[in-house]
């Protein structure tokens, strides 16, 4: 009897996190809050530390949004993103110089990679810009009057941006 009970408890323990992580389309409880902490994989390099500028947000298809991140000379950064499957593939991440608006990295030239690591040789402010491909009624609406409804199950999902940094290691002797 105890053996059966133990099996049931083990099964619940294994299955419940899977259901908890499944996409529910329920955004009533600020589901995107902390999405980058729960869903994005941190680097396997143990020297990286997560930066407070990491953010999560709710996106609709066709939307572009950016966050500002200061980067400092003498540090290596890893910027990655993760997203709900409903948003599809081909999400574009650009790193843009905040002063000149020039694009410093565009993942569409890098096979739509979801992570980018780099060394900083000059402190500056950059924007991490995320563009979700496709269209939705929200992105097509010219003004609020045009907006009738947005399908939560097929047109919107969470995106997390994870920013990690470490001191640039000395190379060579």
């Amino acid at each position, binding site marked *: 009897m105890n053996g059966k009970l133990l099996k049931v408890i083990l099964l619940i323990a294994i299955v419940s996190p899977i259901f908890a992580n499944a996409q529910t389309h329920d955004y009533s409880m600020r589901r995107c809050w902390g999405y980058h902490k729960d869903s994005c994989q941190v680097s396997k390099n143990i*020297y990286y530390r997560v930066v407070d500028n990491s953010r999560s947000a709710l996106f609709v298809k066709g939307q572009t949004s950016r966050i500002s991140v200061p980067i400092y000379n003498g540090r290596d950064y890893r910027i990655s993103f993760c997203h709900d499957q409903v948003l599809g593939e081909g999400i574009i991440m650009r790193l843009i110089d905040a002063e000149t608006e020039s694009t410093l*990295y565009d993942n569409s030239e*890098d*096979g739509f990679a979801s992570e980018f690591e780099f060394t900083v040789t000059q402190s500056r402010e950059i924007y991490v810009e995320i563009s979700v491909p496709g269209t939705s009624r929200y992105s097509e609406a010219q003004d609020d009057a045009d907006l009738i409804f947005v399908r939560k199950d097929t047109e919107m999902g969470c995106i997390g941006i994870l920013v990690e940094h470490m001191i640039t290691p000395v*190379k*060579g002797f």
Partner: protein
Amino acid sequence: MALSAQNTERCYDESDTLLIVGGQLIDNDHFMIDRNLLLKNDTVFVNLAGAKVESFVFSAFALGQKVTLTNTGNVLSEEFVEHLLNKESIFKFFYLKDIILRTSDGRKVSPSTRSIKITFTN
């Protein structure tokens, strides 16, 4: 000009794992390595009897920079190594892709791994 692997046969032998001399076995498409383990005379080869690496493309990204080089033969070119092992190097990762192999019977084949991303831990 980057070589295209489109017109080559694909090689799916279990033993076609790519290796880099220096003791680092690369058996998946993303690999982390200590920068100091990549040697100036490192050689890319394939663990398939009779096959030799004829060429491959190296590409690396840094903030505001992108380098793409075609490497003929299987020894890492000096230019390639200079970009990665220079003390001032700002490249944290690079790709080996479009790898072309020449089999013992003269056929051109590509390994089953299309692209390998190698990230430096330092």
